[in-house]
Every structure is written in structure tokens, then in C-alpha cells.
């Protein structure tokens, strides 16, 4: 999730993020690894721009039990074309496309009771196009050692790996708490409430999935690292997406476990 700690004016940073969703309720195997390689720039002290090069790797094998042809298992999930459902396994690794992200900090949690920011990211890729917006909220306590943050996410996506593109929209709420327990080290907990809708209108909810897990952050003068693990507590699915639920959890682009690692290097 995003906080309101932005690049100072005129400074650059290189970032690398890896995002792994793994383990779906149907047995078999599903791993979705996404990579974002970014160059971040502080245009002003309250506005930063980041350009990303995106890649992904999907590896699936007999991970779904709700199969269109009635088979006991099939190969499916985010990134797996419908035409490949009958295969024992499917994998693809590719550069996907690019993203451009801007974050505006309207109020600063260091000096204001609540920090507020706006995040916008546009993505163009061979697998998916997306437009994501977030309302960023943050309050700091205890000499800014305790950070409480929330992201309210609205996103529209067009998935292009099937013959017919699929349009979806998302409303997510992310909540996090992080505490500096030692010099250079923060640790905390974060949760995510995820809602998928078919189409762009937010009328037809197809998924609800809840996640929670720990995070840890280390930073020195020359680099920083953040890692998080979000465990899917459970979820529900509705038509036309009800095939994406198995064992009380949501599959699709999600797994039982979501691991995130991000590193950054000021330059």
C-alpha cells in the first residue's frame, strides 16, 4: 500500500517490486509473479512521478475445480487463456507493458492531523490495460514512529489474454499500521478488502476477498526494502465470476498467499 512519503523535489529513485500470488483452493498449482521496475522522480516536494516497466510470469496446472466442460479439474486463473483450460499446465513469462504513476500530496501527515493524497496510475500492456486511482490517507503518532494508513482504490481494467477482452472494475480498501521498533526498522500489519465487479459500472459484484498479514520495512541512507505477506482469510464469488471461488477462497488473480517485496535505491 502507498503512504505519503514522497520523493523530494529534484531527486530520483530506482525501485523494483515483485508480487507473488500463489496457491489456489482447487489443488494443483498456481503462481502469478508480477514485476514492476520503476524510476521515480520528485517533480515538487508534494508531487512525484514514476514510470514502470512491467512483466509477469504465470504458471498454472489443474488449479480449478469449477470447469466449464464439467471436468473435475482444469487449468485456469488470471492470465490463463480460456482455450488452455484443458491443458495439464500452462505457463508464460513476458514483458507486459508500461505504467505511469503520479502521486499528489495535498496535506502532510508530519504536520497535519491527517495526510491526504491522490494517486493515479495508467497502465498499457499486452495482457491488460488499467486505470487506477487511490485516495491516500495517513496519520502519524509518537514522533512519527507509528504510522496508520489507508488506501481507497478504484480501478478499471481490460484483460486481453482471451479472444474476447474482459472488462472489470475494482474497489479495494487497504488498511495498515506500521511502527518503528528500532533504528532503520519498521514492522506492522496490513489488511485488504477486495471487490471485483464485471464491467466498468460497479453494478455487478463478482468477488469479495479479504486479506491480512504482517509487513516489515528496513531503510538506510542508501537503500530501503519493504516486504509483506497477505494471507487470504476468505472470500465469496458471484455470477458471472462464481467459478473463481473454491474452498471458501477467491482464485482468479489471487492465491491463498500474496507475497510482496520492494526495494528502492535513491540516486
Amino acid at each position, binding site marked *: 500500500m502507498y503512504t505519503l*512519503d514522497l520523493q*523530494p*523535489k529534484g*531527486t530520483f529513485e530506482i525501485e523494483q517490486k515483485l508480487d507473488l500470488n500463489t496457491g489456489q483452493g482447487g489443488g494443483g498449482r498456481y503462481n502469478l509473479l508480477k514485476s514492476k521496475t520503476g524510476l521515480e522522480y*520528485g517533480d515538487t*516536494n*508534494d508531487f512525484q512521478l514514476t514510470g514502470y516497466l512491467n512483466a509477469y510470469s504465470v504458471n498454472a496446472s489443474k488449479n480449478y475445480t469449477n470447469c466449464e466442460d464439467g471436468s473435475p479439474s482444469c487449468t485456469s486463473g488470471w492470465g490463463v487463456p480460456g482455450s488452455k483450460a484443458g491443458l495439464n499446465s500452462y505457463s508464460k513469462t513476458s514483458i507486459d507493458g508500461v505504467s505511469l504513476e503520479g502521486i499528489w500530496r495535498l496535506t*502532510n501527515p*508530519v*504536520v497535519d492531523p491527517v495526510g491526504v493524497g491522490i494517486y493515479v496510475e495508467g497502465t498499457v500492456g499486452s495482457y491488460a490495460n488499467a486505470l487506477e486511482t487511490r485516495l491516500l490517507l495517513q496519520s502519524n503518532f*509518537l*514522533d*512519527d*514512529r507509528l504510522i496508520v494508513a489507508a488506501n481507497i482504490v478504484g480501478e478499471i481494467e481490460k484483460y486481453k489474454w482471451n479472444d474476447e477482452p474482459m472488462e472489470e472494475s475494482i474497489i479495494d480498501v487497504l488498511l495498515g499500521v506500521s511502527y*518503528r521498533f528500532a*533504528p*532503520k526498522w519498521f514492522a506492522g500489519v496490513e489488511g485488504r478488502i477486495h471487490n471485483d465487479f464485471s464491467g466498468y459500472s460497479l453494478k455487478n459484484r463478482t468477488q469479495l476477498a479479504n486479506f491480512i498479514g504482517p509487513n516489515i520495512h528496513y*531503510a*538506510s*541512507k*542508501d537503500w530501503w526494502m519493504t516486504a509483506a505477506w497477505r494471507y487470504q482469510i476468505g472470500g465469496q464469488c458471484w455470477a458471472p465470476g462464481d467459478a473463481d471461488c473454491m474452498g471458501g477462497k477467491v482464485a482468479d488473480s489471487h492465491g491463498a498467499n500474496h507475497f510482496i517485496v520492494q526495494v528502492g535505491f*535513491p540516486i
Partner: protein
Amino acid sequence: MKWTPSLLASVMCVGGASMPIVAHAKIYMSVEQAQKAIFGNVAMENKPVVISAQVQEMMRDASSVSHPFASNRIWKTGKGDWFIVDEVVGKHEMITYAIGINADGSIKQIDVLEYRESYGAEVAEPSWKDQFIGKTAASTLKLNKDIKNVSGATLSAKHMTDGVKRVMVMYDQVLKNLH
């Protein structure tokens, strides 16, 4: 934040003395160097004090700084000036700084001794820290009130301002009554 030679040069001009600055400018000066930079070649006596729980609470309430104040890093000149070293929380590590207080209770100067963050070292520059010269315990000493922020270093500026505030509260309640 790039550790530029111009920043090193501005620190080296303080007091006119040469400084063993670490190449990447993490450590600006030692305690002894800061004493000379602020008060010249004046003899100082280490004067640790015991701060009561009541005064500690006053310091916290006035400044909102919760990091404990180490009261053993206090020195006094023969004329009644005071030199105090304090630490406040930076974004990831501590910022160590010093305050020189004149015998009349006004701030003579503040200096950053150690700064370990990627960004925000503007708080070590005279253009920001000279705002504290002449302030007293009666001053507001609050960022965006009587102390201007330096955008891009807001967290460091806020914590150092709050640190100076709590030191001045301690001076007013404890040091100025000592002989």
C-alpha cells in the same frame, strides 16, 4: 539527497576551524568541535542534571517529543552560558544536534552533529537553523508558526524544532536556576 561538497563547505566555515568530516557527510562535527563552533575556546564544565518526572512531563507536553532526553550531555561556561546535546527521531535513525544558550537565556546557535538520513539534511544549513538564534523559552518554537519549514525536510525540521522546544523548557525549569 546528494551529499554535495557545497554542504560540506558550509559546515567547514563554521568557527573557522578545520573539521574531520566523514567523506559522505554523515557526521558533521564532534561535541568538542560544536562547543568551539558555538562558544569559541571557552572552558566548559560538564554539568549533568537530574530531571524530575514533573519536568519530563512538561517537556513532553510542550514539545510532543516522546524520545527520552539524556540529561548527562550538558555543559556550562564560566559566564553562565549552556551547551546541550540532544537527539531527536529522524525518519529512520536519530538526529544528533547541539544548542548553545546564552547566559541571558537566548539561543546563541544550534548545530547538527550527526545526520544519517537519505534526505532532509537542509536542517543543517544556516538558512534554516539560524531561525533559532535569539529565541527564548518564552518563544513558541513550533514549525510553521515561528519556525519556517524547509519543504522536502519536513519531518527532520519538525522533530528538531520540537527538540529545541523541549530543551528550552528544561533550561527554563532546571538550568537557569542552577548556580
